[in-house]
């Protein structure tokens, strides 16, 4: 086989074969660094293609996703790249195929956890957000392994419903740290008027959470208490009356804008 032909000279089948090889790191790609993940270089290349070739490349990708979703076969490193590209392409049909595949996990006993979790991660990152009912159905399959992804997925579609998942999360500090980070990212996106209520909901379920998990989440709740007015609900009501919901709500704490705990100055990125 000679050197690779330009992509615009390839037929549909050849383009699909090229993409499968490129995702496996077997085609020269415009990488930023020699070790960069192939899907990122493919995305970079895609931006330089003519619209018709770009469409063909996306069709080829969808076909590869469809092939994977039929039986769930593929090398883990190839599938990792295929699914990462799916997240980036945000193709609604690919999202539906993957969502359906995840619901069929119990029928696909050969599908290893190291392939199942990337499928769920792609679903979390791809629009549209799946409903909380969808993630509940996955939790029924395997609460121990899917709870982290289910929390992320439910936070994206229904943050208040997601809080009710916290008491069932694994009893590890690391799970608590991840949950605190995810809750914080969700809080950043909430309209200011909804932030107090969201923090309150999290605080209300803390007592039901397991001990190792609870610590980081409780620390997050504490970091969101307005220092000036403590937790006095009557005082908070008074402030809300005077300032209105929006102005009285806690604002996003970004480390770049706040002093460091050791007294150091903030460092601009």
């Amino acid at each position, binding site marked *: *086989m*000679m*050197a*690779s032909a330009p992509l615009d000279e390839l037929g549909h089948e050849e383009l699909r074969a090229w993409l499968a*090889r490129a995702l496996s*790191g*077997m*085609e*020269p*790609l*415009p*990488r*930023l*660094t*020699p*070790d*960069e*993940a192939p899907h*990122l*270089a493919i995305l*970079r290349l895609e931006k330089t293609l003519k619209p018709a070739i770009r469409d063909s490349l996306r069709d080829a990708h969808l076909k590869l996703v469809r092939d994977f979703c039929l039986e769930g076969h593929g090398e883990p490193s190839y599938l*990792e790249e295929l699914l*990462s590209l799916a*997240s980036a392409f945000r193709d609604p049909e690919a999202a539906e195929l993957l969502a359906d595949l995840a619901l069929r996990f119990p029928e696909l006993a050969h599908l290893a*956890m*190291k392939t199942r*979790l*990337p499928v*769920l*991660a792609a679903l*979390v*990152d791809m629009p549209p957000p799946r409903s909380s009912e969808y993630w509940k159905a996955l939790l029924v399959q395997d609460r121990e*392994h899917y709870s*982290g*992804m289910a929390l*992320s997925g439910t936070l994206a579609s229904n943050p208040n419903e997601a809080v009710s998942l916290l008491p069932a999360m694994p009893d*590890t500090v*690391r*799970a608590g*740290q*991840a949950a*605190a*980070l*995810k809750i914080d*990212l969700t809080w*950043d996106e909430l309209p200011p008027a909804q932030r107090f209520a969201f923090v309150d909901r999290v605080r209300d379920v803390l007592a039901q959470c397991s001990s190792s998990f609870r610590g*980081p989440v409780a*620390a*997050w709740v504490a970091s969101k208490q307005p220092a000036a007015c403590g937790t006095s609900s009557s005082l908070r009501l008074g402030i809300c009356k005077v300032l209105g919901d929006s102005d009285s709500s806690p604002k996003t704490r*970004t*480390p*770049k804008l706040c002093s*460091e*705990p*050791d007294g*150091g100055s*903030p*460092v*601009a*990125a």
Partner: protein
Amino acid sequence: MATSAFHLALDSLNQGAAEHVRRALEAWTAHSTLGQVCRNVADETALAAGDFVGLLNDFAARLEAGQPFVDAWAESCHRHQRRGRQLLGTECPVILGRARGLDDHAASIARASRGSGDITKAQAKRLLLKYAGSRNLADFEPFLRDAPLGNYLVWATFNAGDTSANPFDRLPDKHAQIRTVLALGSSDEALILLAWSHADCGAPPLHRPTVADAEMCVSYRPYPAPDAPWGFTSPLAPNPWGLDPQPEVVMRQLAGTGLLLPFRVVRA
């Protein structure tokens, strides 16, 4: 004119193997990407003679077995990585650093968190942007330290004048300048600048990079001096700032346990 290391290695192969290698490289010469790989192989200086012969022999055997050229090259390279000169203990820098794509590092964090928190790539990217420039990463820190600093092979630079210093402290801080001086591929995407303590990351052996490490990377250029203790980047043209080549080493994939904070994110 001295015979190149490539020609010496080629002459050591049997006639059939040498012919396979010649034909493959000739087929690549006019290709936009592989043409540079071909020139890099011809200019290679960092592989010891035995390793260069081994690389070409392995490549030829794969071609003879009917493997496509690119697959054969990629797999031969994988089997001959980290064969450049190993830095002596006393030569190893205290602090190493690298630039990589922000998305690439977010993907590394996401993969490392699977089964232990399950942060997704999109979440990891938002967290990297949120905590860039901060020394207090709170709950994010363990996830950042678990993540590998590269995929399979880590490329790094250092400050040869003061190996205890963060190399980015003396490098320019603009995106285009960093890309130029570290010879990164063409991209306007955000970069993350990572620096770490070599000892706190387990002090893996450091090697001078070779064509096998670069595999099919087009921005890599072999450093011409065969006796240099480590490699040097070849700043991208046109380099209007006149930036000097920077030291360059490779090592096995390692987690960022010894990462220095804060890390920085640089946008175009």
